[in-house]
């Protein structure tokens, strides 16, 4: 249990103002420890995606500092930034697979940051990595589709392939930005089950944006509420009342 108390993501006074003046994040302080399964909830436009994209620096922040396992990503450049990103997998609402490529090839792309350019240019993925990709597909029950083209799959299947891609990347952290927003309830459960298993069995830290409170309570161990770029709630699911969650959403109406 000792290791679990070690922070893996630390945000220190993080603010983000978009070039057009919109405030994405406002003085956010947040620490997430190894092995946590954190759910971020909040209305659409509250800043959930901005938070996740700040962590792996798909977006630059305008103030503050973000540490990944103790190392600052805020000013990292080139290879240093790529190595930090390699430790942070990401899952997207729109799956972001290469539709014309095979499932296997998509899953292998999770691995490219482990290779120098020369090797990837000639497609020199090692046998071990191909096996690793196949095992990741087995973990999400997609093994039989390994040679199908990605665009032949349903939305839920595509999202599971994208989870396999992240598994192949073998990161310490997984960021999932509304991974089930475009899926039906049954498929949503399957996808979140997969993420939960990855968290408990492989020990990867998971930070997932959800806008369904029911799912948040069912899967999360810790809930973070965000409103207008600010963290307005942070606590363990077991101690969170429905009333408190309603407040995360309700306050927004007053602000706007």
């Amino acid at each position: 249990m000792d290791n679990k108390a070690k922070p893996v993501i630390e945000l220190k006074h993080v603010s983000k103002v978009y070039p057009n003046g919109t405030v994405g994040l406002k003085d956010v302080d947040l620490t997430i420890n190894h092995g946590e399964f954190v759910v971020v909830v909040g209305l659409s436009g509250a800043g959930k995606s901005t938070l996740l994209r700040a962590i792996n620096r798909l977006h630059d922040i305008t103030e503050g500092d973000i540490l990944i396992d103790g190392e600052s990503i805020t000013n990292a450049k080139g290879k240093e930034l790529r190595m930090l990103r390699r430790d942070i997998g990401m899952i997207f609402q729109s799956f972001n697979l290469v539709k014309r490529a095979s499932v296997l090839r998509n899953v292998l792309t999770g691995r490219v940051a482990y290779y120098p350019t020369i090797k990837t240019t000639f497609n020199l993925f090692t046998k071990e990595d191909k096996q690793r990709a196949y095992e990741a597909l087995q973990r999400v029950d997609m093994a039989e589709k390994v040679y199908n083209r990605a665009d032949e799959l349903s939305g839920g299947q595509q999202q599971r392939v994208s989870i396999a891609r992240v598994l192949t990347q073998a990161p310490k952290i997984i960021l999932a930005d509304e991974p089930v927003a475009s899926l039906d309830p049954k498929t949503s459960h399957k996808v979140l089950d997969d993420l939960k298993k990855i968290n408990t069995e492989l020990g990867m830290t998971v930070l997932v944006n959800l806008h369904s409170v029911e799912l948040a309570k069912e899967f999360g161990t810790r809930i973070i509420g965000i409103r207008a770029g600010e963290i307005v709630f942070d606590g363990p699911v077991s101690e969170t009342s429905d009333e408190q969650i309603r407040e995360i959403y309700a306050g927004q109406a007053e602000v706007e």
Partner: protein
Amino acid sequence: MEKSHLDSLPKKPLRPTKIALTVIMLVGLVVSTIATGADFGMFFANFGEFTVLFKEMAHPDWSYAYYVVDPLIETIKMAVLGTVIGSAVAFPFALLISRNIVKNKFVTGIFRFILNIVRTIPDLLLGAIFVAIVGIGPVAGIISLAVFTFGMVGKLFYEAIETIDEGPIEALTAAGANKFQIIQFAVFPQIQTYFISYTMYAFEINVRASTVLGYIGAGGIGMFLQRSLSLYRYDQTGLIVLVIFVVVLLIDHISNISREALIK
């Protein structure tokens, strides 16, 4: 049915800019006709000569066929080489001017400007320039076609690149991939069929262009076309035109079929 309170569809408003443009174009046509001294009378007066030439061309010199085989092959070789070289250079260049790949507007701006300059030069002028530089022969033709292809497919390529789904780029970036890996794994799979299709399209055009290029000394069958005309051997001209016609048609057809198969 009560519909009296509904307004009827109003007339489409006249667009002043449209009218102005039409007037400007008409005036421009008249002015340029006068300025260039185009003489329609002369055109019709010489019409008789045209029919004579056409009559002779209608009886091609079949025995000449043997001599046009080599220059014909040379023409096709010129087109192939020009297309391959031009497209190969155009691909990295197109990446450099795609705003979703290179975020620096200054860089994309400069290289787009260069591409646009190249595109304004007509193929015949390119031919003339390179005949002057490297001398008469197919090398001048190949370089001209390469530059011409570069301008043509460079634009088609970057427009294709700019329409791709950016999701995979985002995914690869987030996974720690570098620029080359992003291009190889997220961009290339999405555009490769367009890439091949546009290259084949360029080849079709280049086969036609290379027949004409020879006319100004850039190698291939065009040189024979020019010779037959200057010798008033319209029967030979007739044969050459016929051969070009058949070959262009054949290549267009094959290329079309394979492009359709590719897109599927």
